[in-house]
């Protein structure tokens, strides 16, 4: 199994919601005209993903999955066909709840996120997070939370980056038919290619393995340096 940290880093970079799966593209394209609004929407997405995915994880594992109802005395029950409607109901109602709570207890934050919160119920990345969580079968709720937080941050980075680029590109000479939407698509494609380079990061299967590998590599390096024929001293002079 992957470690929790791997899941987190992977969700931000190599499995970025926008660049690898195109989730939440609609609001990504519509709300990325200025950096300020992009930051607001990005923060709201991080927050909602962070809240909804763990809730859906509990729902999946204690209610919907095959055999999940064993605690209630129904070990043969498989309610997974209901998962779409349950997930979307959870997302929509949590968004509503969060909106009310934020309005009551943090009016300043509400002012900043206000208009974006209701939009988020229909943002593909939120439901996508829940469905990926279901498909990948994370073993603990901690892993699922790390995944949700990571994908939220990845989405945030993506939308803030494209908003910054779009603010600057206003001063460039883009061919008229490409202006606006067209060039945004192409830039996102190029950013996606750039993000693909993160796939080169080697994710270790277990933390201990990595430490052992590092130690081995270090001792090899030391051996090489101690060798009088090709050592550092010789090269230095």
């Amino acid at each position, binding site marked *: 199994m992957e470690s929790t940290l791997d899941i987190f880093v992977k969700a931000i970079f190599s499995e970025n919601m926008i*660049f*690898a*799966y*195109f*989730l*939440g*593209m*609609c609001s990504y*394209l*519509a709300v990325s005209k200025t950096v300020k609004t992009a930051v607001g929407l990005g923060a709201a997405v991080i927050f909602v993903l962070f809240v909804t995915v763990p809730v859906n994880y509990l729902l999946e594992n204690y209610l919907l999955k095959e055999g999940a109802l064993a605690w209630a005395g129904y070990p043969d029950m498989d309610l997974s*066909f*209901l*998962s*779409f*409607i349950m*997930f*979307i*109901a959870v997302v*929509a*109602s949590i968004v509503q709840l969060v909106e009310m709570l934020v309005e009551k207890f943090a009016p300043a934050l509400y002012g900043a996120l206000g208009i974006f919160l*209701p939009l988020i*119920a*229909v*943002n*593909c990345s*939120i*439901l*996508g997070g829940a*469905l*990926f969580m*279901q*498909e990948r079968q994370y073993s603990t709720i901690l892993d699922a939370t790390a995944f949700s937080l990571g994908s939220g941050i990845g989405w945030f980075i993506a939308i803030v980056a494209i908003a910054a680029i779009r603010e600057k590109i*206003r001063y460039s000479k883009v*061919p*008229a*038919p*490409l*202006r*606006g*939407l*067209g*060039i*945004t*698509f*192409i830039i*996102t*494609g*190029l*950013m*996606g*290619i750039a993000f*693909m380079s993160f796939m080169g990061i080697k994710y270790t299967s277990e933390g201990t393995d990595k430490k052992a590998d590092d130690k081995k590599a270090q001792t090899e390096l030391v051996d090489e340096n101690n060798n009088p024929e090709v050592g550092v001293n010789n090269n230095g002079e």
Partner: protein
Amino acid sequence: MSEVAEKTKAPRESLFSKKNRKLVTDPLTDNNPITIQVLGICSALAITVQVEQAFWMSVSVLFVLVLGNMVISMLRNLIPSRIRIIVQLVVVASLVIIVDLMLAAFVPDVSEKLSVFVGLIITNCIIMGRFEAFAMGNKVGPSLMDGLGNSFGYAWILILVAFVRELFGSGTLWGQPIFGDYIEGNGLYSIGYVNNNMMILPPMALIIVGVIIWVQRSRNKALIEDH
């Protein structure tokens, strides 16, 4: 598909008036859901690696959008506006569950490849967008036509992108080899042709859609944005 065709036959006279025809033809070009209204991109691009997947995705969206549009349009006077989003979501989610189970039953291999993206039809912005913009304020007939038009507009972009990506990315169409067998090296491959593996990667879908937008807007200057 045939189910929908049967439904359109009965009230033919009123459904195919000039105004209703425009509802179908407009989304194909000048008001295309993907390239102009920028809706439904979320699940559209990820499944355009193969034409087959794109086709089944379009059929699913057609089913959900047409039926959903009709249901919402029938309920439009009963839905309190404060909770309309949740009502709409429940309607879509039930339709998507039907589609998902049907796909799993009749085309299991496609259903496996589409994985989470069938579920994501629920939050496909085309569907919510059309509910909000059209079905909530129009009668059943026009809503049906609007659903048809928008899903065809969605489908042809999807299939075009999938066509380019599958043809140049893996040298096949609908799983059938076009340029000869890559592994045996016959056909075009014998004279040194290689597949462009870049096409299979996600970013190329965005760039192809960008190019489609470019072509479309150079042909119709009225669509050009200021910035």
